[in-house]
């Protein structure tokens, strides 16, 4: 079988692990080949890629949606052409109306933000000032993860958590470092940095270190559990990250696609949950992503 894969973008560490996971897994299956395309974060480009896949006559399509609100149009294209479609990693808005031969394999972004924040609250003993570093503002994951932090702040275990500042560093490590330096120079006081991803969190750590702040005075949290993040955690710098099982998602997506292509049935929603990573269970994740 030929499976067309449209990734939201290639320049993303987590999605790269996911993509490579799918690629590697497909090689272990006989007769399955992947045609992977880069949508470069462009909804329209992604839609066109799906149409190009249809024109090229692929047996199934896997989509890692740029925007989960734009999935209805894609579902329709695939359904009209009778090609099976799997959404991976980001939950499509039309999950409940997915047509025949379509499914979702992935995790709930809200959970990532929640796990991250809960652990921060625990470390801060429920009280303290936090800053949020957001990913690209037009990006779904950035918004949902940020929203999760805000949903928790001031409530329950996090009653004493106060968000003092939120800014974007566009997922980038250097921009993250620059942002934190700018905050520090403005005299902002904070006890925790809650970042939408690990890259910005590592940037924050670099900036804090450069400014001579002791790393045990600030809780830094990220999402993704990338290799760099785990290294940073074992060095005692990063305090919290959240593991998203990229390999599991990739494997699940390819499996589902193959099954649908063969005319078999699959579950509509295959959830692969996020997992919290702290120095305590770090070793378990060392070789996973």
């Amino acid at each position, binding site marked *: 079988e*030929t499976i*067309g894969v449209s990734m939201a973008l*290639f320049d993303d560490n987590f999605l790269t692990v996911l993509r490579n996971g799918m690629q590697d897994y497909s090689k272990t299956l006989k007769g399955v*080949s992947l*045609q*992977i*395309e*880069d949508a*470069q*974060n*462009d*909804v*329209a*480009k992604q*839609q*066109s*890629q799906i*149409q*190009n*896949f*249809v*024109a*090229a*006559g692929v047996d199934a399509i896997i989509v890692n949606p*740029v*925007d989960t*609100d*734009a999935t*209805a*149009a894609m579902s329709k294209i695939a359904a009209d052409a009778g090609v099976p479609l799997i959404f991976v990693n980001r939950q499509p*808005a039309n999950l409940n109306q997915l047509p025949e031969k379509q499914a979702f394999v992935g995790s709930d972004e809200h959970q990532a933000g929640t796990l991250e924040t809960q652990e921060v609250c625990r470390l801060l003993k429920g009280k303290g000032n936090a800053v949020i570093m957001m990913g*690209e*503002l*037009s*990006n*779904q994951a*950035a*918004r949902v993860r940020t929203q999760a932090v805000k949903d928790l702040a001031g409530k329950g275990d996090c009653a004493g958590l106060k968000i003092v500042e939120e800014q974007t560093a566009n997922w980038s490590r250097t921009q993250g470092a620059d942002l934190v330096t700018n905050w520090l120079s403005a005299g902002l006081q904070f006890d925790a940095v809650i970042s939408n991803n690990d890259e910005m969190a590592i940037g924050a750590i670099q900036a804090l270190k450069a400014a001579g702040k002791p790393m045990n005075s600030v809780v830094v949290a990220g999402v993704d559990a990338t290799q760099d993040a785990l290294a940073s955690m074992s060095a005692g710098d990063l305090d919290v990250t959240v593991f998203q099982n990229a390999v599991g998602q990739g494997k699940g997506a390819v499996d589902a696609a193959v099954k649908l292509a063969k005319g078999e049935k699959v579950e509509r929603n295959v959830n692969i949950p996020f997992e919290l990573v702290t120095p305590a269970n770090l070793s378990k994740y060392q070789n996973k992503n």
Partner: protein
Amino acid sequence: MNNDVATSATPLRTERNRKRRMPPEASILLVLIGIALLYEALGWIFVGQSFLMNQQRLTIMILQVSVIGIISVGVTQVIITGGIDLSSGSVVGMTAMIAASFAQSSTWTRALYPSLTDLPFIVPMLVGLAVGLLAGFINGQLIARTKIPPFIATLGMYVSARGLAKWYTKGQPISGLTDSFNFIGSGAWPVVVFLTVAIIFHIALRYTRYGKFTYAIGANMQAARVSGINIEAHLVKVYAIAGLLAGLAGIVTAARAQTAQSGMGVGYELDAIAAAVIGGTSLTGGAGRITGTVIGTIILGVMTSGFTFLRVDAYYQEIVKGVIIVAAVVVDVHRQKKRKTR
């Protein structure tokens, strides 16, 4: 400097009957045909099927670039005046957001303006066009009045319009659009819009005073001024039209995706400029045609479809894409030079 030296001495009126020269875009059309035939041949060799004999593929080849094409028609005019428009991609995003917010269906529970749902499709349409027009008008006014370089004026709009698109809903996408709005993005409608726009402005540039002024300003602004053309007023028009078309492109984009997202149109400005330049529009102004731009746009589309068709690895695609863009223009420039010195 006359590197390209004419062959005859004083050209006489009797030369009227000389063979009409091939139009400049003929050469880039040959490049397009060359690329298509190459894919066709490779297709039979490696994939065992025809590249061109596939209705679906022929449609998507143009469909996927029709938004770029719509923008590019406006950008071509701007470039002919000797300017540049970097803002088009951002204006697409901004317009998509604002237009879509007036196109939400009442069945969608999270409508941005719950009291303004289920409006007839003409409302978001006009709102979108107005937003695009306004952005272009501001570009034009800045350039004509304050005499800042078009690069800077439109760069400012590029940054601001994108910011506005994000700010408008704090980055939330706008979904649940009405079917009547989505219609314009369905099927091959974007292609129809693109070609209609192209035909209109092909005619405008070649057969109206608007067109003559546009070329004159780009060819020699000083000459245009002393010929009595109101440069400022005309530039405002040209940039406003470019904005209007970017606005139209934004509407089509949103309708096609059935949602609007603040990141829509990122990077389109470069694609649109590339399409125009590949099609023979000169960045120094004064030369360029819509037919060329349409061909340039289609080259981009054919290239993309061809990659998927031939299962080119995505990692190589970009590397090769860059090479093809350069090669297409090299071939074109070379052919034109040869024709001149012949």
